[in-house]
């Protein structure tokens, strides 16, 4: 039995975007019965990574829920599209990193969920050189 999985793809397989570009793509939920998914959420978000508390902000959000007592249609890929903001730009510093990704969370029974993330880069801030003393 194949474990449930979420596949996210970007149009043109691009991973590099500039502010104002349109990020578009689709996601598929595989290995799951149609009535298993209680809701699906897609977020385009950035988060910080480092040794401290994470910061996180959602730029774009969509939630799919069963309509009229039916179930979420998992048979078809679901498309998404959003215009990317001017900031924050992706950054890979030593103390702090800023990461952008598309995250899909599929909520199933008993509060469980599966999720997937696909990272992309916004802007062209170069990776800083480390200067040793």
């Amino acid at each position, binding site marked *: 039995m194949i474990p449930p999985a979420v596949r996210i793809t970007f149009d043109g397989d691009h991973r*590099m975007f500039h502010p104002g570009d349109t990020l578009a793509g689709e996601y598929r939920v595989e290995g799951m019965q149609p009535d298993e998914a209680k809701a699906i959420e897609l977020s385009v978000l950035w988060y910080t990574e480092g040794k401290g508390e*994470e910061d996180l902000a959602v730029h774009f959000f969509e939630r799919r829920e069963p309509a009229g007592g039916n179930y979420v249609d998992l048979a078809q890929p679901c498309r998404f599209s959003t215009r990317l903001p001017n900031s924050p730009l992706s950054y890979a510093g030593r103390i702090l990193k800023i990461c952008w990704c598309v995250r899909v969370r599929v909520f199933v029974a*008993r*509060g469980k969920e599966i999720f997937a993330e696909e990272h992309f880069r916004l802007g062209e801030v170069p990776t800083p050189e480390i200067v040793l003393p």
Partner: protein
Amino acid sequence: MSGAEPKRMLEQAQWPPQPARDKAAVPPLASPAALPGGPPAVGNPFSTRPTRPGALSYLFSPGETPETILSRLESQGWWGEIVGPHGSGKSTLLATLVGALQDSGRRPITFAMHDRQRSLPVDLEARADLDAARLIVVDGYEQLGRWNRLRLKRLCRRRGWGLLVTVHASVGLPRLCETAVSVELAQRVVEQLLTASGRPPLASDQIARSYEHAGGNLREMLFDLYDLFERAPRR
């Protein structure tokens, strides 16, 4: 931006979320460094993201499982304290237990206390809607003032709620378990993190040095390794 997710995040900040039980089903994070022409080389395996409680799996002693500990908690009337020094995995264990509680019929309400936070952020006394199947979970129980701890205990008794807390030294609640760190455990944790991020293993003497440097505090050791990872030549 839709308002739904930010609202949920606010709720989670007040009532921290339960960790996903299906960790095994969660696909590993993409390795951004490996993406063609893609994102910056992010993904330090020792950053907060993969090491925070709930993301990092607690490594149980042989013979212990979440179920055996919860069974002990149930036999204690759902009251218990997890005792251990700084950085020994109390919060990580708690996150694992809270996840396992989903199936036990006890519905946890979790509070993560911060420095100098002397009271709970919610007035539980006023929450008549909370039934007796609740389990109040307080991570960092010692932060609460003495009077607030007493009030909380009385409230839990009166309402039939369970009470599960983490502390550095016993506060007189029934002992559920103690957390302790060893260099062997530290090595297993590092191995777990590196495997999950698809990185090659670290030499055991390097881990032992970081462990010593951090004074046996696992959290500090992971911070030490974060710096070590960042000092390594970038690809």
